[in-house]
């Protein structure tokens, strides 16, 4: 679906734009972390170790209060701890390695983001193209339904649905561990199914709206009229003419939606609704209780989210600039 011209534009835009390069770099970082987390992680991210709890990141110091026997009495002693290579990003309240948790957290964010966005896109585009192409009552019905969906803030709806349906998760065996390449790492990866479906459910409307708008205007294009005058079936017209020509804005929206969904997932995890404890949002919620003593537990996962989302947004801008130079863009759709 990506023609030579679009490829050329993408390349040209990439060469000219520093921001596009930064975006691709950040995204690569997240994708590589997510994929090779078991190989890259220094520790098992779920392994607790009270001895090593609340260690600061490399290069930082932290005062820690411990109970020690001094002169036969239990006393609270303040002691300075330094970050070490052992735990480059420090450890959390129960001594789990932050660096490993960040790497594994990328998996959750990325998988939920990509699969959620894909499910939303497929549903929304199918509905939207049909409604826009046929118009009339089908279209009216969809648009009123979309209005109702839009009336619920996606976060509120997601919280309600996940909270009420309960967090279903599926353990997926980790191929690296199965292959014996990463001993000591978690054997399965916990994929939050409910969260993924719910984020898709609350976001498909955006795709439907964009696809509908595209279909409505493409329906008026002379090449679609020409195809009809030649006797092409509706199915053929939608698949051969309407879908390919609405692909660009849908792709741009899908990209932005990955970012939106990562933010949504982290918010759900933060509120404790996600069902997995290997998530950036979950760690922020944990770290929130230790702000006064261990700032890094809440800060570092947040930075990871910001970096990932910036990366995706930059890629979205790059795609939009490259794919849509002349066309009046509906700016993002959200």
């Amino acid at each position, binding site marked *: 679906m990506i023609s030579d011209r679009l490829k050329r534009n993408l390349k040209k835009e990439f060469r000219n734009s520093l921001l596009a390069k930064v975006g691709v770099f950040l995204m690569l970082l997240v994708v590589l972390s997510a994929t090779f987390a078991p190989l890259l992680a220094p520790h098992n991210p779920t392994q607790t170790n009270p001895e090593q709890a609340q260690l600061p990141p490399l290069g930082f110091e932290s005062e820690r209060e411990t109970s020690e026997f001094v002169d036969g009495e239990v006393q609270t002693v303040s002691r300075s701890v330094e970050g070490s290579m052992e735990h480059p990003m420090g450890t959390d309240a129960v001594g789990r390695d932050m660096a490993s948790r960040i790497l594994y957290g990328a998996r959750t964010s990325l998988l939920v983001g990509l699969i959620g966005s894909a499910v939303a896109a497929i549903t929304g585009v199918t509905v939207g193209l049909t409604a826009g192409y046929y118009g009339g009552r089908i279209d009216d019905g969809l648009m009123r339904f979309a209005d109702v969906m839009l009336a619920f803030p996606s976060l509120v709806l997601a919280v309600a649905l996940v909270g009420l349906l309960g967090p279903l998760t599926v353990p997926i065996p980790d191929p690296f561990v199965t292959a014996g390449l990463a001993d000591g790492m978690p054997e399965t990866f916990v994929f939050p199914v409910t969260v993924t479906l719910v984020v898709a459910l609350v976001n498909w409307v955006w795709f439907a709206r964009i696809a509908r708008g595209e279909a409505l205007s493409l329906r008026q294009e002379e090449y679609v009229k020409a195809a009809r005058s030649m*006797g092409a079936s509706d199915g053929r017209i939608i698949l051969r003419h309407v879908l390919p020509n609405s692909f660009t804005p849908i792709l741009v929206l899908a990209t932005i939606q990955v970012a939106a969904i990562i933010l949504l997932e982290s918010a759900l995890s933060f509120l404790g609704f996600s069902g997995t404890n290997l998530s950036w949002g979950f760690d922020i919620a944990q770290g929130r209780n230790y702000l006064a003593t261990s700032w890094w537990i809440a800060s570092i996962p947040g930075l990871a989210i910001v970096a990932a989302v910036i990366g995706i947004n930059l890629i979205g801008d790059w795609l939009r600039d490259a794919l849509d130079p002349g066309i009046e863009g509906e700016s993002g759709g959200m």
Partner: protein
Amino acid sequence: MTDHDEPHDDARRTDDTRRTDDTRRTDEPLVSVRGLEKYYYEQDTLIDRLLRNDPVSIKAVDGVDFDVYPGETLGVVGESGCGKSTTAETLMRLREPTGGSVTFDGEEVFEMDGDRLSEFRKRAQVMFQDPFSSLDPRMTAGQIVREPLEIHGVGTREERRERAADLLERVGLSADQTDRYPHEFSGGQRQRIGFARALALEPEFIVLDEPVSALDVSVQAQVLNLLSDMQAEFDLTYLFIAHDLSVVRHICDRVAVMYLGEVVEVGPVDEIFENPDHPYTEALLESVPRADTDERDREVTALRGDVPSPRNPPSGCSFRTRCPKVIPPDEVDLPQKSYTDVTTLRNRIEREGLDLEFVWEFAGDPDREDTAAFKETMREEMFDSFDADFAGEDAAVMDEAFDALAAGEVETAAEILRERYASVCEAVNPELPDSTHPAACHLRDQPADVREAVAAWEADDGAAAGGAVGDGAPAEDAGSSAD
């Protein structure tokens, strides 16, 4: 409606091939359009029904008749919004008609389905106006030309490929350009690709919807020549939609002139251009600036005003609001120019809403006291030569009307003027009579039923002084019953 031309197979228009003999045409029309209507409705949603808003109909095409004979090029001309493109798209079944019928080679197009529709889609093609939007930007030239063949399952993959290459070459592109995308071609070349696509299924009939209006003149000439050559070579019948009269004159055999959703005049191209029968056609021709050094000194009387909105079309003849030749009633004896001024004033009052406040201000009396000044302003501003032309009864009626206006009684003024000056043009809608060069104008021959309606109106006018007929509704019935 029959035409008087012989069939021909050479579309190149040189003077010796021009057909001027008067023998009636014996062959059957390839395409025959009768009473074609396409209305759109506004304010027709559920909420409007709840609010009891009446749907507003927009009569984009309002009872169009014409025939296209095998081998000829019928031009359809008119200004934007006259319904010419809608007519073309409706007759090709790209839009659902509101009424009327279209036959193609004797078969009713609107009743076709399945194989018969598919056959029609093969034999009749459309070529569109916009070189940018008529080709799918994601398909190569080759794919575009192959598409109709694929849809109708013509030939093998290899045969289709060859045929597409052959077609592209015929329309003047080279074989190595088949894998290029539309944006790699210039506007003229894109139109050639669109034409090759229309030719792919070896159709008999092609609707050319403004095929050259988006092109520069030098390129336009290339494409026009191509269209002529291909018509001669493949024995094609064209319906040529255009707004550019010189192009129409160049390429068409017969011409239909459209105004506000109706055909107002049809005839052989030379007759239309040299002896136009309808005042609109005449005005259209006069308006075109000629590329000639004498042009600067040619006196051009431009039509007044704008085309009325199709939401609120005028009663009777749709052209009467702009027509310089509106027919005065028998008892009125004014020069045409002054009568036209009266009709303009009446249009302002009845249809557009005259801004009295501005007249008062213009008269230098915003407090609305000096009626004499008001009347003076009306006479000066609305009329060319009031004092010379209006006398006796006319002067009295006008004076009475101005008095009413000065008093703010717009309805009364309208009534006073209508009573004396109502024209047959606003009462009865003229139709196209059955002839080789018909015009829908009361100044020309009219079909018997229109003549009857006129007679009835005149009788009624004489008796009731024209009051009731002027509002158009009953008159329009009289007109449309003639279908």
